């Protein structure tokens, strides 16, 4: 199994006629993903790579049975497009865009909650359930099917870590990029709950950063008696305090946010913490070994 995404998701692409939309259609379908509809207001009736384009999400869902949305529109339009899909009944909506105002992410999150939908993003690489489907631009060769769930605040870092896992023979159930922004569609805590409920996932690798409170939720999960084993990498050991490291949330604001404090807290909760990206395989192997007992 996997979480959120598998071969059954029927995906529509908002902004399908743009650069990123068309690139996604080709790449995702090559991977076996069911991309069945596109939405581009004013372009209804056209088609992209054989995928029919509609003027609205509601029409696309009605005509094609789409239940999942991938959003590629300019940052100022992301809130409107995402909420359109949520209100049209999509169960999963992914918006990878960065440059989304936090204010808009807050509204999207509230809409998703009201409609019992799942939102992944913003400022995220998306998610992939290896061997089944992908919603994002992650390089497919970095992944293989397996039994480790991966949660990442950063896109490239998840490619790097998963490639290392894959080369070491460790496959993934689902790799979900929760994104680097302070208000997330899906938090680490929520992704952990999903992996917890997924019978195929035996251990979780969490790729975190300095700043924010996401890591506290990971430690809280790991400390549960029924928790699945967790491995983690926290980057930013060398970041100076008080400077924002690219991601809006990656800023050491107080002592609790620092690399040292987070590492200590995670270790205390029983998490296998990697000393650096070189050690993610070793830490994940340790978590899997714990799962075997």
């Amino acid at each position, binding site marked *: 199994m996997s979480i959120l995404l598998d071969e059954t998701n029927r995906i529509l692409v908002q902004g399908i006629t743009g*650069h*990123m939309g068309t*690139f996604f259609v080709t790449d995702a379908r090559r991977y076996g993903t069911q991309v069945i509809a596109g939405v581009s207001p004013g372009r209804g009736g056209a088609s992209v790579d054989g995928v029919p384009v509609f003027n609205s999400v509601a029409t696309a869902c009605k005509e094609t049975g789409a239940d999942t949305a991938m959003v590629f529109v300019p*940052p100022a339009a992301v809130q409107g497009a995402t909420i359109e899909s949520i209100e049209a009944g999509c169960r999963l909506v992914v918006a990878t865009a*960065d*440059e*989304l*105002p*936090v*204010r808009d992410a*807050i509204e999207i*999150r*509230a809409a998703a*909650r009201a409609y019992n939908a799942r939102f992944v993003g913003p400022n995220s*690489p998306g998610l992939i359930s290896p061997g089944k489907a992908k919603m*994002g*631009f992650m*390089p497919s060769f*970095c992944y293989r099917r397996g039994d480790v769930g991966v949660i*990442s605040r*950063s*896109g*490239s*870092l*998840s*490619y*790097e870590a998963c*490639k290392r896992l894959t080369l070491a023979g460790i496959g993934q159930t689902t790799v979900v990029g929760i994104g*680097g922004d*302070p*208000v*997330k569609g899906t*938090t680490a805590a929520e992704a952990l709950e999903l992996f917890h409920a997924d019978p195929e996932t035996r251990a979780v690798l969490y*790729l975190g*950063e*300095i700043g*924010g*409170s996401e890591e506290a*939720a990971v430690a809280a999960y790991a400390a549960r008696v029924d928790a699945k084993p967790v491995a983690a*990498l926290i*980057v*930013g*050991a*060398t*970041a*100076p305090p*008080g*400077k*924002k*490291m*690219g*991601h*809006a*949330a*990656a800023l050491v604001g*107080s002592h609790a946010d620092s690399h040292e404090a987070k590492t200590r807290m995670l270790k205390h909760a029983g998490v296998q913490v990697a*000393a*650096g*990206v*070189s050690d993610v395989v070793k830490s994940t192997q340790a978590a899997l070994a714990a799962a075997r007992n």
Partner: protein
Amino acid sequence: MMILEYEAKDLLRSAGVAVPDGSVIRPGARALQAAARRIDSYPVAVKAQVRSGGRGKQGGVTRANDVAQLRAAAKRLFATTFGDEQPAALLADPWLVIDRELYLSVTVDGAAEGYVVLYSPRGGVDIESGAPPVRYPIGVPWRFRTHELRAILEPVEKDFQVRERVIALAQRLVETAAARDCTTIEINPLARLASGELVALDAKVVYDEWGHFRNRDIAEQRAGIRRRADRLLKACLDMQHMYVRLDGDIGLISGGAGMTMAAMDMIRRYGGRPACFFDCSPGPTSTRGYRPAIAMLDADPQVKVILVSIFGGGTQMQRVATAMKENMPMRRSGKPVVFRLDGTHVDQVPGILATFGARNHDCLEDAVREAVKLARRA
């Protein structure tokens, strides 16, 4: 994007929050003279306008009892560096007699799924050392409820008149944060005067730069930062690159915030020192953004080696390699460049790099080791 105290107070004033009626003083004798004419009552608090924290503890706030003391304070403060920042302005606020210092802020918080109000009945410079503020998580700004905040304040704020004023103020701050795309509005201290009035003695506002398209204040802030940057950095900022200068000698060009930090951490682990956090992840098709990045690091005397480490998904690696190839002939500096490109279409990379005599490292460890070695030699 944090703004200066006087700018933050202007924003608060426009939203109906009471702030001291202060005067901004720019550098130079003339500006000081003009300010001295405007200030008609003493004492005043003369405050260095810098973003760095802990200004008070570094002598950045001085009391001036007359014009002579104002001049002396201005001279000293303009000549002082706070953190790595020299003040571009001072703020002279009337010196108010304070009954009590409170703490009030509104900030964005992931756990709250949006805005959160923080309050402490004891504010001021030592806010971090006291009991933590109480939290009112709101989420979407229109979920703010005065009666909910009241219930949270009751146990910690015993003066019900202060409580009611704080509630009204907090609502104003939440509305302002939402309307003007602020991720933090912090008032510390919020002063209670003998009259009962609450006045924002100091204020910190952080704008969400991605709200620039609907907020001219933010757009102007961004433009100002770009304007003040030198030519090379400006070109990088125009490309939406994220650059933070550090104190080492390995100029790291990377993609993605997490991956950039991972590479920084690895450089340190192998005994090297990164010269910067430099996230140059452009859109999936534009690759001309690497040119200004390399030009900036070439021009930086602190940088001895350039390490290009990109793991691209939407960013296709053959395009990155080609962009690098096109950049090389324009370089004047002989600084070595170490490459580690991986991700989409990486199979085409070695061939392209070979055309200008470079080679690609398969794994980050090798590339970092090489960069550290070259930096030591240089």
